[in-house]
């Protein structure tokens, strides 16, 4: 069974009386363990597609299934549980909670899951060490560099052992050296744990590393929709 199945997905945005067709009938199937980049020009629908895969948005038409679960049939609470247990998010702007330390940020998804403080701390610390931030676990995001913050975000995305990690332009706010490190880290985790990574990017360095490229143009897949 495919991890993600998208069937004839359309997404329209209504800006006053103007209708913007962001996605125009997307059909896509992604298997477990893939390392996929969604790329294309600005406004091609990359972020919209990732939001739909991440169950944080609804399509105007079509159906998305994650591990066989049809998203549109789930209640808001069930979707929240699905995101918490199955999906990890890495955002372009890192989106760490500023009042929490690196460790507490990584513990957050586990706390939402209801895992006890002790176990959550152990698991979060393990992930932080994996991303090379064991020494800076008590620091808050404001005291960390962009690269460090993005590594915390990666640790947070992986701490629940999700089957899918969605990253929206994860290297966009990073310098070249840090971007290279982040790419290498994601690649390593993908190979070691068979976690599926899907990310949108313009970064050629990242595109060179992926196994599969999905190119979007004007709301349609023009290349890489099927393997």
């Amino acid at each position, binding site marked *: 069974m495919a991890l993600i199945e998208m069937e004839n997905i359309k997404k329209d945005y209504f800006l006053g009386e103007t209708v913007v067709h962001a996605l125009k009938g997307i059909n896509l199937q992604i298997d477990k363990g893939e390392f996929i980049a969604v790329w294309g020009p600005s406004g091609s629908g990359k972020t919209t597609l990732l939001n739909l895969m991440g169950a*944080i948005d609804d399509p105007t038409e079509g159906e998305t299934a994650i591990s066989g679960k049809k998203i549109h049939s789930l209640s808001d609470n069930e979707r929240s549980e699905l995101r918490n247990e199955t999906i990890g998010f890495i955002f372009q702007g890192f989106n760490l909670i500023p009042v929490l330390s690196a460790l507490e940020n990584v513990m957050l998804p586990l706390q939402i899951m209801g895992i006890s403080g002790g176990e959550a701390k152990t698991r979060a610390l393990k992930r932080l060490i994996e991303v090379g931030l064991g020494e800076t676990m008590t620091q808050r995001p404001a005291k960390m560099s962009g690269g460090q913050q993005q590594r915390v975000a990666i640790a947070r995305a992986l701490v629940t052992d999700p089957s899918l990690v969605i990253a929206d332009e994860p290297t966009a706010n990073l310098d070249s050296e840090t971007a290279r490190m982040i790419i290498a880290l994601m690649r390593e985790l993908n190979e070691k744990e068979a976690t599926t990574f899907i990310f949108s990017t313009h970064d050629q360095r990242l595109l060179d590393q992926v196994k599969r490229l999905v190119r979007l143009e004007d709301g349609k897949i023009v290349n890489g929709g099927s393997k």
Partner: protein
Amino acid sequence: MKNWIKMAIRNILRNKRRSFVTLVAIGVGFAAVSLFRGYTDNTYFGLRESAIRGEGLGHLIVYKAGWLQKGKLDPERYMFSKEEVKKITEIVTEEKDVVLATPQIHLTGIVSNGNISTIFLAQGVVSKDDRTIKGAWASFRPITGEGLNDKKKYGIEMAQDLAKHLNLEPGKDGVVMVSTLSGQMNAMDIQVSGVYDSGSDATNDKFMRYNYDFAQSLYDTQMAERIVILLNDWKKTETMRSRILGKLAGQGIACEIKTWNELSLFYSKVRGMFDMIFLFLFSIVLVIVVMSTVNTMSMAVLERTREIGTLRALGLKRKGVSLLFAIEGGLLGFLGSLIGMALHLSVWAIIRGISPTYTPPGVSTPIPLIVNLVPQSMAVLMIFLIFLSLAAAILPARRAAKQNVVDALGHV
């Protein structure tokens, strides 16, 4: 939950100035209500003691059935006979919560110093029982002279303005005239044993107290108008009224019992006024707390929209977001109440240090301004403000929870 509370505390500290203003608003509101409650607690205590002991009402007053409606028209019919007084006293004093039961007669008439005369209102009391009723309160308004005693049956206590008006002082003689039970005029010599402050401008120029036996002689009767009952705890007033009423009815004695607060008009009116002021003050504080909390939490929701989106994307349910903001609201109420308690204690200490006095309207002498510490009321107020702040945070919290995740994540 511990981690969510920790996160809420850090979020409160995040915008220190705004949180400080909110906490001060809640704190000042708490202190205002709490201090007023402390002031009324002391005032109610003073008024209660003044009514029970100062006015000599005791806790319960037993009248023969019908006295309150027709007693003045036909007193003989509605007064207690000597035997009835004895029987009632025996029945009542069987109760362990009853300190004493004592008969009284109230008379009105004219008092003269030999040259000028004026009207008076007087209580005929058993002097030993009257001293028990007064208790420690007697030291609050001490009597000049020796006061009532059994040795000098014709000795009376006179309120200070009446004594001043008649130019009488302890040791000096006068004459009282009253209408007897059968309607004849009766006059008897008196000697002023003591002069006292009734505590009220309205009664200081009219009141007198004399011995019960003397009052009976003056009224030419062996009967009593009322039986005053003193209890060991004022809180048992209502319970004991029902109990004694039942017991007396069981013995075939038809009577009615009034409580001290029903008969003390001053207490009832002052309490009614203070309760109204308290309600008014409380309403203002309620509005301030709700407005401050709603404003703070609305600003917090607006500023943290992106964070809310992140938390939702990570899997936090809508009710989880609501809970997070509700905890913050509740914490604002809790911390604000702590500030309020500190303010209350500071003002309380200052008042105790300065010991200011004031003269309320209608009262003859200045009284000390005292604010009590009422821990029970402070605890109730704190719990109320915590829940109020929590409830006030619910509205913005629900708005936060209902936001679309994508829109929230895109919020700048």
